[in-house]
Each structure stands twice: as structure tokens, then as C-alpha cells.
């Protein structure tokens, strides 16, 4: 019955839908495109654009230069274009449906600079891995400041405070905490290990050119760790002529935060160019908007400096490298706490953290010009990270030294429809941690090899299949298979699926810094002696499907997308906070999973007025002591709306509203003493807005507000009367701990 009904509905729709299409006669034109080099013979051009004059229908040539285009009978001309060649307009004579097109080389390869208005977040239709490209415009929607804050206008990522003392925010993707997402800087792993949470603040927004966010399993080329997804951050490039030479940025908030950024680029020659990045930030005012005697965020001083170089040599050589230094000093806790104060009962409770981080990286690549599509690249990166913190009488001192190397060889088989990437990698991690005097030290050495095959014969179907094998000096050998599929039945419709395995060592302290802002005991059930912390590695499989549909409604463009991801943990280091006196870490015994469903609609209602609506649902459960429970402090439902408008004279308006559903709060100490039973937090609404105006493309001022409803979690710190007593807990945070914040700032560019 149901299937009959379906068929009826289906055919009915087909009739309605296709009458419009049938009214217009289509004509199939096919042909081959070649290009005439100044020296040498004509060669077929793969990837040349073929479009109708009104730009309604377009295609690209395949690897052999062939194309096929269904055009309306009324179209009389097509345009063929290819970078480096003069575009040609071809007259279509009736009956002549096979074309041989030869393009002439343009005298000089002209750099094409796109200055069109682009969508702030674009979803790629062609990549087999779905990725949201977050551009400059999206980044500027939140005027600040650093990576973790820049996600506040992105519905795919949740941002929440880790605790009510340190001011750090943690991102969440697919219902999994930030450290499950691989964060890379230009495809080199960046904020791993100790910096898993704090590291997001070390990349100021002004340094960033754009980001690519992809959910689900990633490419094996970038390692075996990413469970929930990958966020790749691209810094500003020094060789882009269209970019400004200098960028100054100043920011001031009513909550006493001042920030300044400077980005400078210099092109010494066509071959050599360099960037200088400087950032200074200070939280200099003590703010306590919830009147609990605790600063809502610590006082801080933060400096970041980076310098990097690009060299494009002859014969396809390219070398780039950079250094970055980060220094952060935080002081928080009770309002009258002074840095270095004695932390005993009766004295003010204080939080201090000092971070020094030094990084250096290099990429060396060579494109083999004789053999098409073949290249070899070596990525190197070294990190030294030292982080010393005091949370009341609890001390946490930690040092990380990491050396990463990744050698990638890429080639094609016959043509660019078959691309092979293969290579070798080695990661050395050395950690020395000391929690309240107890040392934890480990060295992990993981050499590995990988191979990835990408197949993309037609516009309709692609596939990326990869596998890597790694040998871990403690856990032994393991394999990481990953697969991505893309199928586009229609030009504006894409389905994708992915599956893959991930493995990682949980840095249990650095990833749970928030719980240190309490008097909970850190208890580890060390079931695997000899392993880091005596725990097994985390192993998870991630399965995902997604669907993107672009459409035109009332002559305006839009896109609808939906995705579903399921992460299945074979082993997890369970972080158990069900008992208010402790945080317990143990190997998973039973099931643990995270389901995530996300639906999003992007539509340009009228010219320059963009609307984005999104809804996401999580079901994240873990077995805590034989009992399958919802993971605490994660909202099952979240709805998101954003409206952006840009006027012709460069005013920009942005408004974001989100509704965050209730979260499970485990049993906690009650404010008056005793224990408050497990329950659910209230849901809440948050709003952000920003107005900016650009003058002559060089000077921009902005004014904005965060948390405009001034919604705050009441009494986020439990046991404020005696923070040295067992009842003290500032880690059970489900809502905003900072109230309304108004900010203003400016950006000045010199070209």
C-alpha cells in the first residue's frame, strides 16, 4: 500500500516537475578542447570551462579534453576558457553538434583575482569529502579574536566554556569534545596534546585567511588521529598581490579586553616572500558579572609572534617554513587573589597559568614537470610546549616535545582520473606531566606508512580510499582504513558517504583542564600498566552520510544540506564525573557512541541578504560503571539562525540567534551543602550581533555585542564560601558564565 502510494506520489511529482523542463528543447553538444602553446604542439586541455553565453549551463572538460553539454536549442554561442589561454566564443551552427576547439595561449599568464562577493561559508560540491569553507567574511562576523571564538557563528561546531574560572572555551563537533577533532595549520597537525583545549586561543583570527571544516573521518595522509573531523586553518599568504601589505587590527570590549594584531607581508621577488604576524592581548579588568566573588575570566597577557617564508624555485621546487612563539600568563580565581599568593584555607583561591610554546615548521616540495601530476613533499614540524598551572592548591605542570614528519609522494596513473598519494610519516611525542606532585611521563614514537587512491572519472562519481599502517612503540602495530564516496545524480545534488577508523592517546589531564577548577580527586583505574596513564588507546569508527542540494528559488541561490554521523567507540577513556567528589578515568567497558544529525538551509532571500537556518541533534551515550548514560553537559538539541546583510556602500549587518537545549547535569554538591541529585539544565537563547562599515576598502570599523540577552548560568561556582573545602566545584558548566559583552574595533589596511 505504502509503496503504491509512493509510486503514485512519485509519478505525480515527476509529471508536474518535468512539464516545465519539457517545454524547452535541449540540444546535446560535444567536442574536444585543445590548447596551442607558444612553443610546441597543441595539447588537449583537461578542466577547461565550457559555458553558454548566459552562463546558465556549464561543464568542464575531462582528462582527455572532451566535454558534453546539454544546452537549450535557443543558445547560439558557447564560451570556452582555460587559465593561461585566450577564451574563445564559438558560434553554434544548427546541426553541428561536434566541435573541435583550439585555444591560443595568452602572451602572459595573467593572475586572476576574484573580487566578487562570495558566500561567507561555501560548501564544496566537487570534493569527495564534504567540507565547509569558512572564508574571511565569516571570520569577520565575530570581530574577535581567536580560533575557538571564530566558530560561534558556525552551526557545525558547538562552543562552550570548560569551567567558570579559566575562561577557556572548548569546541565540540559531532557531540565529541574538541580534542577528537584534528586541527591542522596548512595540513600540519597543530593543537595536539597539551594544547588540545588551550591551543585554540593561540591562533588569532587576524592571521587567518580561511578554514576548511570537514566532519567525519579524514584523509589518511594527515594521520590516524581524527575521530570527529578535521579543521584546517590557512594563514594569510605573503605572495598574494591582491592582499594588503599591512593589516592593523584593534579590539576593545566593555569587559576589559584589549587586543591588537599586526600582519605584514613582503614580496622580495617573484620567488621569495615573507609574512610577519604579531598579536598582543590583555584582559586587564576584573569582571564578576554574576557576583559570586570569582572573576568570570582570568586576567591575562598574551603574545603571539610568527614569521614565515615562501620560496618558489626553478624546476618546480617550493620551500616554505616558519616559526611561531606564544606566551600566555593567566591569573584568575577569587577577586582579591594576587599572583603568587599562598593558597590555603582562609586565603583567596587563585588560578594561575603560564604557557610558553615554540613551534617551527617547514614544507619542501617538488613538482616533476616532465611527468604530469607527479610531486613529492616533505612536511616537518617541531613543537615545544610548557604549561604550568595552579588551581587553588592543585598544581599541574606539563611539558610536551613533538617532532612530526610526513613525506608524501603523489602521482597519477594514465591521467588525473586516478591519483595516488603514498608516503611515510613519523611522530615523536614526549610528555612530562606532574599533577599535584605525581609524575606522569611518556614517549610515543609512531612511524607509519600510507597509501591513498582517488578516483574521479566523471562529475557524477568519485571515490577516495586510503589505508595506513602505523607502529606505536607502546601499543604496537595497527591499521587505519578510510573510505570516502561521492555521488552526484544531478548537477546540484550531491550525496556523500564516509567510513573510517581512528586511534589516539587520550591526554587525560590536558583535555579535562576544566575539572581541575574543583576539588574533585583525579582517579585513574590503571588497567594497562606500561601504557600512558595505564590506559588503553582510544579506538573509534566513524560512519557518515551527507546530502547537499543547491537550488534556485525565486531567482536566488540557496543550498540545503543534511548529514548524519555515527561514532562508535571500540575503546574510550571514559571521563566519569557522576560522583561529585571525583573525576574518574577508566577504559570503556560496554558501549559508547555519538550520533549526530544536522540539517541546514542557506538562502539569499534578496540580493545581499543571506539567511542561514540550522538544527542539530545529538545522541551521545557512554557506559559509566555498567550503566549506559547520556554524556553530561552536552545539549541534545540546538537551533541556529543567522542573517547577514551588506549594503552597496559597505555597511555590513550580522545577527545570530541560537537556542541551546537542556543538558544532563550529574549529581553535584549543592550550594547550601549536601548533594543535589542529577538533573537537567534549562535551555537558553543566545544572541550576537555586529555592524561594520568599510571606508574605501582600507579602513573598517566594527561594533558588536555578544550574549545580548545577558543570559548567564546562575551561580556557576559551587562552594564559593570555602573554595578549599570538598564542596568547591567550578566545572559543572552548561551555560554562559560571562554576561553581555559589547565591543568595538577597527581594521586598517595598507595596500
Amino acid at each position, binding site marked *: 500500500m505504502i509503496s503504491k502510494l509512493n509510486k503514485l506520489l*512519485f509519478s505525480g511529482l515527476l509529471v508536474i516537475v518535468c512539464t516545465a523542463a519539457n517545454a524547452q528543447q535541449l540540444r546535446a553538444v560535444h567536442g574536444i578542447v585543445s590548447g596551442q602553446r607558444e612553443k610546441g604542439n597543441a595539447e588537449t586541455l583537461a578542466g577547461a570551462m565550457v559555458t553558454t*553565453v548566459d552562463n546558465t549551463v556549464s561543464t568542464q572538460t575531462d582528462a582527455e579534453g572532451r566535454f558534453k553539454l546539454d544546452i537549450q536549442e535557443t543558445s547560439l554561442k558557447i564560451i570556452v576558457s582555460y587559465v593561461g589561454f585566450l577564451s574563445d566564443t564559438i558560434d553554434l551552427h544548427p546541426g553541428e553538434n561536434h566541435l573541435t576547439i583550439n585555444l591560443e595561449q595568452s602572451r602572459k599568464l595573467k593572475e586572476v*583575482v576574484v573580487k566578487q562577493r562570495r558566500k561567507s561559508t561555501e560548501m564544496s560540491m566537487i570534493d569527495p569529502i564534504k567540507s565547509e569553507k569558512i572564508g574571511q567574511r565569516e571570520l569577520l562576523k565575530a570581530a574577535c579574536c581567536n580560533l575557538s571564538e571564530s566558530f560561534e557563528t558556525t552551526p557545525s561546531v558547538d562552543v562552550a566554556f570548560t569551567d567558570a574560572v579559566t575562561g577557556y572555551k572548548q569546541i565540540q563537533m559531532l557531540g565529541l569534545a574538541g580534542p577528537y577533532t584534528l586541527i591542522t595549520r596548512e595540513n600540519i597537525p597543530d593543537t595536539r596534546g597539551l594544547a588540545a583545549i588551550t591551543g585554540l586561543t593561540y591562533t588569532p583570527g587576524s592571521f587567518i585567511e580561511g578554514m576548511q571544516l570537514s566532519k567525519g573521518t579524514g584523509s589518511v595522509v594527515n594521520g590516524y588521529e581524527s575521530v570527529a573531523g578535521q579543521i584546517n586553518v590557512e594563514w594569510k599568504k605573503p605572495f598574494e598581490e591582491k592582499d594588503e601589505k599591512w593589516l592593523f587590527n584593534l579590539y576593545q570590549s566593555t569587559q576589559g579586553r584589549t587586543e591588537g594584531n599586526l600582519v605584514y607581508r613582503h614580496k622580495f621577488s617573484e620567488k621569495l616572500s615573507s609574512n610577519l604576524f604579531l598579536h598582543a592581548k590583555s584582559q586587564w579588568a576584573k569582571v564578576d558579572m554574576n557576583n559570586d566573588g570569582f572573576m568570570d575570566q582570568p586576567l591575562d597577557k598574551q603574545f603571539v609572534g610568527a614569521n614565515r617564508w615562501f620560496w618558489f624555485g626553478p624546476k618546480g621546487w617550493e620551500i616554505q617554513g616558519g616559526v611561531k612563539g606564544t606566551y600566555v600568563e593567566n591569573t584568575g580565581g577569587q577577586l582579591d587573589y594576587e599572583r603568587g599568593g599562598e593558597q590555603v584555607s582562609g586565603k583567596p583561591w587563585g588560578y594561575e597559568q603560564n604557557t610558553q610554546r615554540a613551534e617551527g615548521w617547514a614544507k619542501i616540495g617538488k613538482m616533476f614537470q616532465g611527468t604530469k601530476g607527479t610531486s613529492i613533499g616533505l612536511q616537518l614540524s617541531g613543537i615545544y610546549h610548557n604549561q604550568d598551572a595552579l588551581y587553588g592548591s592543585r598544581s599541574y605542570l606539563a611539558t610536551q616535545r613533538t617532532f612530526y614528519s610526513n613525506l608524501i609522494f603523489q602521482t597519477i596513473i594514465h591521467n588525473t582520473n586516478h591519483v595516488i598519494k603514498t608516503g611515510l610519516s613519523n611522530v615523536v611525542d614526549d610528555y612530562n606531566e606532574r599533577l599535584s606532585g605525581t609524575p606522569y611521563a611518556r614517549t610515543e614514537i609512531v612511524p607509519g606508512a600510507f597509501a591513498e587512491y582517488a578516483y574521479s572519472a566523471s562529475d557524477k562519481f568519485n571515490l577516495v580510499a586510503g589505508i595506513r599502517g602505523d607502529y606505536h612503540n607502546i601499543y604496537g602495530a595497527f591499521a587505519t582504513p578510510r573510505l570516502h564516496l561521492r555521488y552526484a545524480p544531478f548537477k546540484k545534488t550531491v550525496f556523500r558517504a564516509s567510513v573510517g577508523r581512528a586511534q589516539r592517546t587520550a591526554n587525560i589531564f590536558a583535555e579535562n583542564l576544566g575539572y581541575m577548577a574543583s576539588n574533585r580527586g583525579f582517579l585513574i583505574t590503571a588497567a594497562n600498566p606500561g601504557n600512558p596513564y595505564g590506559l588503553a588507546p582510544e579506538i573509534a569508527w566513524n560512519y557518515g552520510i551527507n*546530502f547537499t542540494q543547491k*537550488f534556485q528559488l*525565486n531567482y*536566488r541561490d540557496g543550498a540545503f544540506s543534511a548529514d548524519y554521523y555515527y561514532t562508535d567507540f571500540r575503546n574510550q577513556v571514559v571521563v566519569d564525573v557522576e560522583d561529585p567528589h571525583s573525576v574518574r578515568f577508566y577504559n570503556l567497558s560496554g558501549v559508547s557512541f555519538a550520533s549526530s544529525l544536522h540539517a541546514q538551509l542557506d538562502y539569499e532571500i534578496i*540580493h545581499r541578504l543571506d539567511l542561514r537556518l540550522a538544527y542539530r541533534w545529538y545522541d551521545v551515550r557512554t557506559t559509566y560503571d555498567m550503566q549506559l548514560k547520556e554524556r553530561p553537559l552536552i545539549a541534545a538539541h540546538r537551533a541556529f539562525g543567522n542573517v547577514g546583510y551588506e549594503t552597496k556602500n559597505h555597511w555590513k549587518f550580522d545577527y545570530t540567534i541560537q537556542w541551546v537545549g537542556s543538558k544532563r547535569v550529574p549529581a553535584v554538591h549543592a550550594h547550601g551543602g549536601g548533594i543535589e541529585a542529577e538533573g537537567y539544565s534549562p535551555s537558553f537563547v543566545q544572541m550576537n550581533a555586529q555592524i561594520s562599515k568599510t571606508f574605501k576598502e582600507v579602513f573598517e570599523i566594527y561594533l558588536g555585542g555578544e550574549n545580548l540577552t545577558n543570559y548567564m548560568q546562575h551561580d556557576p561556582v559551587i562552594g564559593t564560601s570555602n573554595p578549599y573545602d570538598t564542596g568547591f566545584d567550578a566545572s559543572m558548566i552548561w551555560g554562559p558564565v560571562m554576561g553581555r559583552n559589547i565591543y568595538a574595533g577597527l581594521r586598517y589596511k595598507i595596500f
Partner: protein
Amino acid sequence: MKQIIIILSIIFSCSASFAQDKDIATASFKVEGNCNMCKKRIEDAAYIKGVKRADWNKDSHQLTLIYKPSKTSPDAVLKSVAHAGHSSEKTAASDADYNKLPECCHYKTNTCEH
């Protein structure tokens, strides 16, 4: 399941056909210009009241308009475009307006790389 997906796809891919109403016309004109900076300027100028969509193709120099004939006319659009400095097959830009264009967009003499 498969059918549902197909139905959904068709609904979305063809939703444009549903939205069409009688008071809509499409027209295409040649408008002088160079580059993507010109493209932005031409399209911005073309979006006057009654224009649903304006696309200028950098390679063919064709401006394709979708508009409501009851509210505007191609002449009015091209006038607005000419006022922004870009001549078309129907309306020529005045020298004053043309000279306001940035150096690289002087399509009569220069070729622009932006």
C-alpha cells in the same frame, strides 16, 4: 528510501520552475567591462528595483537580466549601469562617469588583471 531521496532531489532541483510567474522576463545585453571588479560594479548597478537577478559574464561581456517588466525595463537597468561607468549596446556611459572608474577598469584602453 531511494524513492524518497529521488523525490526530494527533484523537488529541490526543480523548485525554480514552480516559482516562475507571468510577470518575469529575461534579457541579455552586451555591457563593456574588463574584469571581476567590473563584474561586481556592473551587477551592483543592475540590481535596481524590479530586477530579480543580474549576472555579467566576464568572458562574453553579456549581462543577463531576470526582471519584472511591470516594475522596470532593460533601459532603466542599462542606464543605471552606464551611470556606474559601463557602456552597453543601448546606453553609452558619459565621459565623466567613465573617468570615475579605477585605472584598471578603463575598458576602452586597458586590460585589467583583477
